[in-house]
């Protein structure tokens, strides 16, 4: 796999508690990578290890083809969970300052920043002080200062917290746009909806361990475990007899409006679903046959509780 970042067996202990225990993961270039986990699982510590803010007790972090150095860090765009801007400074000036800290020229930074401000509807705030901004606007400014120097790797810690749905969507579009233009994005979150919508791959960290890693589609399909939802009309007895031996029923059947019945069934992992569909089609009026793919939310909760 062509990976931009590889984390190898990283452990980190703070006085008294282990924040990360032998965590490994590989982030594919050009993907949007979700770092999930309950509060206090070690996500932020992991991000800080990647960012060189905290050194791991053991383990290594590789950036592209070499062990990560301080100079690489300066090329990463990082938006911390606790956002911070200098309150007394003017918005535009501050954005230019951060862009220059990341190595952009003053001229270039000003030009690019004006484009971004226009895009996110902040132009008229350029000369205002940061303390006059609303929280959402300050978040947007923070987002812009994180991405303006076009880093290859972006790390967002809880990017959607504090945004209303409209602006969260706007931000989502921008993140997807950044990925399409070649950036790799890592973001830590416990907002599972956003994970389903935009993440290509995830790692789930719980109690300082990496408990689940992989592409989102694959994880959901696996967690689903060949469970299907069938909607039909006709004799329930016939339904039961026709799937007998090929599948097992899960739970009770439910009646639906219009005389339809809904029933969940489980089909063994390796068996074919066509005989099941064939038998059902012969005996009842089949309306719908659909694989149940659990939401990331379910998977998250089940994984954390150890019932996946």
């Amino acid at each position, binding site marked *: 796999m062509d990976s931009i970042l590889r984390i190898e067996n990283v452990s980190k202990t703070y006085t008294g508690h282990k924040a990360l225990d032998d965590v490994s993961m590989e982030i594919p270039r050009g993907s949007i990578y979700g770092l999930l986990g309950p509060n206090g699982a070690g996500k932020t510590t992991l991000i*800080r290890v990647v*960012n*060189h*803010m*905290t*050194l791991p007790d053991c383990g290594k972090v590789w950036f592209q083809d070499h062990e990560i150095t*301080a100079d690489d*860090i*300066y090329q*990463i765009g*990082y938006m*911390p969970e*606790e*956002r*911070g*801007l*200098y*309150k*007394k*400074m003017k918005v535009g000036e501050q954005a230019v*300052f*951060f862009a*220059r*800290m*990341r190595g952009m020229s003053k001229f270039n930074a000003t030009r690019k920043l004006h484009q971004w401000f226009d895009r996110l509807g902040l132009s008229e705030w350029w000369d205002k002080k940061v303390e006059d901004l609303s929280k959402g606007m300050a978040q947007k400014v923070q987002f812009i*200062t994180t991405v303006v120097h076009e880093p290859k790797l972006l790390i967002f810690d809880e990017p959607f917290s504090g945004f209303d749905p409209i602006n969260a969507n706007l931000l989502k579009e921008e993140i997807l746009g950044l990925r399409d233009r070649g950036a790799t994005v890592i973001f830590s979150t416990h907002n599972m909806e956003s994970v389903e919508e935009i993440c290509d791959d995830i790692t789930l960290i719980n109690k300082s361990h990496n408990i689940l890693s992989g592409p989102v589609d694959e994880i959901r399909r696996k967690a689903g475990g060949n469970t299907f939802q069938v909607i039909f009309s006709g004799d329930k007895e016939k339904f039961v007899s026709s799937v007998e031996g090929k599948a097992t029923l899960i739970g009770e059947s439910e009646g639906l409006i219009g005389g339809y019945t809904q029933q969940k069934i489980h089909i063994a992992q390796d068996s074919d679903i066509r005989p099941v569909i064939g038998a059902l089609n012969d005996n009842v009026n089949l309306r719908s046959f659909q694989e149940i793919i659990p939401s990331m939310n379910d998977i998250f909760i089940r994984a954390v509780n150890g019932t996946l």
Partner: protein
Amino acid sequence: MSKTGLIIEREFAERVRKKSFIISTLLTPLFMIAMMVLPGILMMKGGSSTKSVVVIDNSPLQFVGTRLTSGKTVEFKLLGPDATLNDARMAYKSDYGILVIGSDILDNPQNLQLVLNEASSMSVEENIQSQIQSILRTERLKRYDLENMDQILADANVRVSGIQTLKNNDQEDSENMEETSTTTSWLMGLILGMLLYFILIVYGQQVLQSVIDEKQTRVLDVMVTSCTPFELMMGKILGIALVAALQIVIWAVLVIGASAFVMPLIAGADGMEAMTAAAQAASSTSEFSGLMLRFSDVSYLASLFLELLLYIVGGFLFYASMYAAIGSSVDTPQDAAQFNGIIMMPVIVAIMVMMSVMNDPNSDLVFWCSIIPFTSPIVMMARIPFGIPTWEIVVSLILLYISFILMTWVAARIFRVGVFMHGKKPTWKDLGSWIKMK
């Protein structure tokens, strides 16, 4: 531009544009001018501080009372020979006090009483005592009935009011010896030491605040992934140092400008006369004229200025880096208070040592205190005007600047670790291990 440069620029711009900067820059010189003008105005009004003392003199022919001379501090009112204390107590309630001189004062000089209507004043007592002492001394001498008594007395009345001190050098010609004045030197050192103390308190706190702000606004997460903590610390310290420099230069220009052009306008011609008189009175003491004399030597002044500048800058930077270290290890200004006193300790020790420089500018204590960076900026400033070997200045300056860099490095170490220890007050042991931490 380097990252340190960018941070310097930001810190500088943010502070200089603040309203509080503009206000304090304009108000402080006004305050300073007021401090200069007020004593002059008070002196013009004069009188009010002169105490009037009623004198009941029971001595033969009232020989004491008649010779008491009124002056700026005390004005004497001699009553007739039959006045009694009880009458006077009723009659002169509004006067400062009543002096009762015993009839046997010549043989029993203790027989003196001062009955006060107001709080006692040391200067009045001293004035009366010294006058009476000299009157009695003269009178007792007269009892020996020598020839030319008056001339002898006049001749014996001598006062030594200054000593010319010269700096011994290698040149054979003793004419070329430089004049030095202990008091002048000391006074200059004292003023400059105080100046540094003031700068430390005002701007050192700003460095502390600035580092704490960095944590409270949570900008630090972004900053430490943009630059090294050392660059951040250095940028902050130098940025604020520049603000201090700018403010002091503005003050100097304003004060000099104001005293040259504005003060005559405010005070008017009469005021100027009074002030000139006051200045002349002050400069009659040899110390003051010595100071003025030395300041008129331009090359001496230039080299002195350069050395003092190096110490003020170095001293500020070193102490600022200590403030930065404190700011790095705490979360709130309240937490910083416990460390704050520790920083001020060496400054206070330095000022105490500086006071003792006058007695012996080359004692071991003074020597070491002027080499060790914690005290050197203040103590050495007081020593320099005495003329000390160049190597001592060089060594102490090098040590001072190296210490500044080291302390900034330490501050950066503490910052890097302290940043991620939110909410926990560090102990001294913690600080030690943070510095050692990789």
